[in-house]
């Protein structure tokens, strides 16, 4: 199967039923068993589930939906969603080949989310936290008014409860369909993070695959601690845009988490299965003064 699927041309390749069942390599595999998109190992779904969608053979981190992310990260109980009542509108009456309104409806049906950020209050190994996760499955996790406003709600909740904020980013950047309003969400989220810092509330930013553009150039890189998942693509400009601009091949591993670590852009790369314990430890230390006060 391994060599066979690789030598087939892409079109025929698509018709192989097992491949069909795993959908594209970008989404999390469904069905009873599936195949790792990186090492091609055949895995039971339950095995993947136990490993938080990390391939137990090669360590490839499959992308998660926002709810999967929060499900794996937070203690099972209690969980309270914040900002679910905020819904996207179409202030520009934006229309390309499709209307923004239609795109929103389609994204909502496909993903089951109302917009691209899900926020919950809960516990992490018993410590109260607010956790936010980008829904890449919703219009590429793009940041418009709702994402920005939900993020502010998350931060405000962390300020009021005096508990850490953790955000998992996965986004192509600002949402074009809301024009300048989307761009200004960058300033808005940055401003509320500045308040967290002044109030000595830790903000942990976890950069997951992919974190690009306006999200990378605002909230995602403003964490007190920056953690990336292995091999996550992280950057400002997309690799294709850079290639077209400079007309050169990009270096091996460019904009990957390991490359960023080497260039001093992030604090750590942490395996998804260790994220809970690692972040719990770090916020415990950062909140020490708060708790002994």
């Amino acid at each position, binding site marked *: 199967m391994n060599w066979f699927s690789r030598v087939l041309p892409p079109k025929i390749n698509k018709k192989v039923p097992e491949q069909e069942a795993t959908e594209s390599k970008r989404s999390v595999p469904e069905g009873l068993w599936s195949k790792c998109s990186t090492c091609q190992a055949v895995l039971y779904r339950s095995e993947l589930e136990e490993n938080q969608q990390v391939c137990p053979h090669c360590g490839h981190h499959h992308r998660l939906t926002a709810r999967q992310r929060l499900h794996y990260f937070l203690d099972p109980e209690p969980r309270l969603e914040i900002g679910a*009542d*905020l*819904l*996207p*509108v179409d*202030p*520009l009456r*934006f*229309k*390309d080949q499709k209307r923004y309104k239609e795109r929103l409806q389609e994204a909502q049906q496909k993903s089951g989310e*109302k917009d691209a950020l899900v926020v919950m209050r809960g516990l992490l190994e018993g410590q109260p936290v607010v956790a936010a996760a980008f829904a890449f499955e919703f219009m590429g996790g793009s940041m*418009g*008014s*709702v994402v*920005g*406003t939900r993020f*502010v709600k998350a931060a405000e909740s962390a300020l009021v409860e005096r508990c850490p904020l953790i955000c998992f980013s996965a986004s192509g950047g*600002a*949402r*074009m369909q*809301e*024009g*300048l*309003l*989307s*761009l*200004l*969400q*960058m*300033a*808005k989220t*940055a*401003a*509320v993070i*500045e308040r967290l810092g*002044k109030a000595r509330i830790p903000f942990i930013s976890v950069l997951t695959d992919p974190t690009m*553009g*306006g999200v*990378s*150039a*605002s909230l*995602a*890189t*403003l964490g007190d601690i920056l953690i990336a998942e292995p091999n996550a693509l*992280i*950057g*400002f*400009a*997309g690799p294709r*845009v*850079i290639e077209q*601009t*400079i007309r*050169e091949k*990009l*270096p091996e591993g*460019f*904009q990957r988490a390991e490359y960023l670590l080497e*260039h001093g*852009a992030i604090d750590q790369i942490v395996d998804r299965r260790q994220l809970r314990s690692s972040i719990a430890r770090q916020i415990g230390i950062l909140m020490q003064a708060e708790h002994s006060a």
Partner: protein
Amino acid sequence: MKLQYLDFEQPIAELEGKVEELKELNQPGIQEDIKRLENKARKELQRLYSKLTAWQTVQVARHPQRPYTLDYVHALFTDVEVLAGDRAYADDAAIVGGLARFQGQAILWIGQQKGRDTKEKIQRNFGMPRPEGYRKALRLMRLAERFRLPVLTFIDTPGAYPGIGAEERGQSEAIARNLAVMSDLAVPIISLVIGEGGSGGALAIGVGDRLLMLEYSVYSVISPEGCASILWKDAAKAAEAAETLGITARRLQSLGLVDEVIDEPLGGAHRNVQLVYENIAASLARHLQELQGMETARLLSHRYERLMHYGVVGAA
């Protein structure tokens, strides 16, 4: 300097060309003809500019003869001192900044700078800053805060530079850091879009207490060409993208995102720079006076509220 015309301005180019020819002939009795033609040219200019499309506005905002940051700095300010470098890596010529006086008042100014000729364009990287440019801006803003100088920024960039080195040195973080620091910098900040407001690369010096735009400047989350190539898979649809993105000064003002649109002469700032300088000076003086009358705590809480109000959402 010979006036350059944009494609959509060709009817004016012809009329004004004829006027020039007649003037050179310098024959008696043609004064009437010249007047008539000049009138016709002015009417044509009025006609074109009264229904300027978003895409045509982009062309004007990118006009090669449009005044750039340093033109405004030298026209509006005295005692201009240029300050360089980020103290860590390099001096980025795509962002300029320094000290000056505006109507006697000590200020700090920052802006993106495009180049006029090929050599300068390359030196200034077409006004596309790298991280060291944003970090220079940040350093200057902190200097302004320390010495209580209001900050005036001039926005004119296609965007932050998409290059290997820029990414390696943390383009994202450099932009993000500026947004955070500007949101709470304890001096008044006024930003003026003078040409192209290109996405995050523009916003990185554009967070503050006032956002002003010149009449024919644009400000957008993505370039019309970039948007078209993503959503239409065809960069040639840039005109449609420009329209729907809502990037003109007037449109953004109607959305409540811009505090004031500063008038330009018909045909754009380059046709009468003196008039533009006067309009900008009047506007800056007014806003500066308003902001300097505010106590710092009030200034910052207003700025914060202003940032928090950005966005349009519905409720379940």
